[in-house]
C-alpha cells in the first residue's frame, strides 16, 4: 500500500474521506508548487517572444509534451497534442477526423459503457456526415461483451471508439486486443483514456490504437489541460477544429495554411501554467511508479469490493472481483436513492459521487436511474473505505433496511 497522504495538502486541510477521484483527483504539493513557482518567476506567453522569459516558458511548455509522450510510451513528442482534456481531445478526433472522412452510412462503433464525452461528439459528427452509430453491449458481470464486439466488427465500422476503463463499472476492456481486431478491419481506433491512464501503466505502442485521449486533472494534475495522442499519419489526416494564432504557417486575407502537427491543433494561447503542473504530475507518478500505483489501486479495490459485498442489500454495478477492473466502484443500497446516500455519507466527511456519472445510456442498460460511486486514487487508504462502510450502515439504519 502506498503512503503518500502527506503529499496532498487538501487532505491535511480537511478533504476527509475523498472518494471521488474518478471525477477529479486531489493535487500533490509538487504540482501546486511547480505551477506557483513557474507563474511567479519565468512565466510568459509561448512560441512568440524572442526574449528570455518567453523562451524559457516555451521550453517548459514543450517539456510537458515530451513528458506526456514518455509517460504513455509514444515514440515522438510531435504525436502529442496538448488540449483542454479528454472531452476536447475526443471532440477534436470526432469533428476533425470524422468530419473529414466519414461518409453517409459509415458506421461508428461505440460501447454502451462510454462516458457522454465519447458518445455526444460522435452523435454530432454523425448528424453532420450521415454516418450511423452502433453500440457494443456489456455482459451480466459488467464487462464489455467481446463476442458482441467481434460480431459488430463484421459490419465494417469506419470508427471504433471505446473506453480504456469504465468510469461507472470500473471494468477495463482489453484495449490492445480490441484495437488489433478493429484495426484489422480498417477502422480508426479511438481510446478514451480518462480513467485508465491515471491508474495503469499505459503504452500506446502496445495498445496499438490510432488515438488516445486523457485529462490532466484526473491524473493528479491541474484542470484545463489534457492530452490527445495520435499516430502521426492520423494526425496529418485530421483537420483542426479551431483556427487562430499558433496553429498557422501563413495567413493571407482569404486563406491560411496550417502549422505542422501537433501545433496546428493548438490554436490560441495554450494552458501554459497548467502544462507545467502536468509535467509535475507525470514526474510525481513516475516517482511512485505506475506499477506501484496499479498495485495500490488493485489492493484497495479488492478490499472495497470485499467490504461492500458484506453490506446487506448493497448491489455493486460492475465486476464483483478485482480482475480486469479498476477502482471506480458503483453501487446501489436497497431503495435508498444515491443522492440521499451521498448526503448521509457527506455528514461523515465521506465524499462519493451520486448520479448518472455522465453515462445515461449505461444507466438505462443497468436499469437504474443513478448509482453512488466510490473511486480510488494513490492517497486513498483502508480507513477511507471503512468510513464509507460505516456511513452505508448508518444509511441502512435511517432508511430501515
Amino acid at each position, binding site marked *: 500500500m502506498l503512503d503518500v497522504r502527506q503529499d496532498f495538502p487538501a487532505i491535511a486541510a480537511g478533504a476527509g474521506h475523498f472518494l471521488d477521484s474518478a471525477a477529479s483527483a486531489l493535487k500533490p504539493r509538487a504540482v501546486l508548487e511547480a505551477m506557483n513557482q513557474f507563474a511567479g518567476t519565468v512565466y510568459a506567453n509561448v512560441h512568440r517572444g524572442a526574449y528570455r522569459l518567453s523562451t524559457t516558458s516555451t521550453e517548459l511548455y514543450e517539456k510537458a509534451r515530451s513528458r506526456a509522450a514518455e509517460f504513455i510510451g509514444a515514440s515522438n513528442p510531435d504525436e502529442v497534442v496538448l488540449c483542454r482534456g479528454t472531452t476536447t481531445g475526443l471532440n477534436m478526433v470526432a469533428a476533425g477526423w470524422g468530419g473529414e472522412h466519414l461518409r453517409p452510412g459509415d458506421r461508428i462503433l461505440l460501447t454502451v459503457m462510454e462516458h457522454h464525452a465519447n458518445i455526444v461528439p460522435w452523435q454530432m459528427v454523425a448528424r453532420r456526415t450521415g454516418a450511423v452509430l452502433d453500440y457494443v453491449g456489456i455482459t451480466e458481470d459488467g464487462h464489455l461483451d467481446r463476442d458482441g464486439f467481434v460480431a459488430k466488427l463484421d459490419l465494417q465500422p469506419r470508427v471504433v471508439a471505446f473506453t480504456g476503463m469504465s468510469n461507472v463499472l470500473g471494468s477495463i476492456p482489453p484495449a490492445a486486443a480490441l484495437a488489433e481486431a478493429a484495426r484489422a478491419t480498417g477502422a480508426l481506433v479511438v481510446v478514451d483514456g480518462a480513467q485508465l491512464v491515471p491508474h495503469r501503466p499505459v503504452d500506446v505502442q502496445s495498445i496499438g490504437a490510432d488515438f488516445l485521449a486523457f485529462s490532466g486533472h484526473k491524473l493528479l494534475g491541474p484542470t484545463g489541460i489534457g492530452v490527445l495522442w495520435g499516430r502521426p499519419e492520423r494526425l496529418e489526416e485530421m483537420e483542426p477544429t479551431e483556427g487562430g494564432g499558433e496553429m498557422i504557417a501563413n495567413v493571407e486575407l482569404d486563406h491560411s495554411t496550417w502549422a505542422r502537427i501537433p501545433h496546428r491543433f493548438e490554436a490560441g494561447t495554450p494552458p501554459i501554467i497548467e502544462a507545467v503542473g502536468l509535467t509535475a504530475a507525470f514526474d510525481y507518478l513516475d516517482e511512485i511508479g505506475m506499477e506501484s500505483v496499479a498495485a495500490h489501486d488493485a489492493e484497495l479495490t479488492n478490499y472495497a469490493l470485499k467490504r461492500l459485498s458484506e453490506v446487506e442489500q448493497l448491489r455493486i454495478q460492475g465486476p464483483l472481483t478485482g480482475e480486469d477492473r479498476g477502482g471506480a466502484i458503483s453501487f446501489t443500497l436497497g*431503495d*435508498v*436513492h*444515491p*443522492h*440521499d446516500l451521498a*448526503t*448521509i455519507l457527506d*455528514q461523515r466527511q465521506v465524499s462519493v459521487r*451520486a*448520479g*448518472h456519472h455522465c453515462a*445515461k445510456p449505461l444507466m438505462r442498460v443497468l436499469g437504474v*436511474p*443513478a448509482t453512488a460511486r466510490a473511486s480510488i486514487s494513490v492517497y486513498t487508504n483502508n480507513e477511507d473505505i471503512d468510513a464509507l462502510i460505516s456511513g452505508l450502515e*448508518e444509511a441502512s439504519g*435511517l*432508511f*430501515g433496511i
Partner: protein
Amino acid sequence: MALEELYREVILDHYRNPRNRTALEEPHAVAEGVNPLCGDEVTVELTFGGEAVEGVSVRGHGCSISQSSGSMMGEAIKGLDREAVAVLSRRFQESLTSEDSNSESEFGELAALQGVRRYPVRVKCALLPWTTLDEALSA
C-alpha cells in the same frame, strides 16, 4: 441528530408510498420538471372543478426528498382553489429558501421537509415539485 431531522419517518413513508401517482385521464394543466444536475423528474397534472383543484397526479423518480415533497404537495393542494395553491406554493418555497422561517405550523405534514434547510444542495430537491406545480398553474 441532524440526519434524523432530514430523513423523518413521514418523508420515508411518502417516498416509499407516494400518494396520487395515477395519471389523470384528461388533465387541465400539466407540467414536467427536471433537475438536469441530478436527473430527478416530476410530472404534475391537475384538473379543476371551477376554481378548485379537483384531481392531482404527481409522478416522477428521484431522491426521497424530491419524491416525498411531491407526494405531500399533492395531498396538500387537493381541494384548494387556484389562488390558495399559489399562495401555499410561494410560502412553502420561501420557508425553505429564506433566512428565517417560523411558519412550520401552517404546513402540516409538509413541515417535515424543513429539515432540508440545513442541507443547501438538497433544497432544490424539495423545491422541484413546487416549481413544477407553479408551471402547471401558469400554463
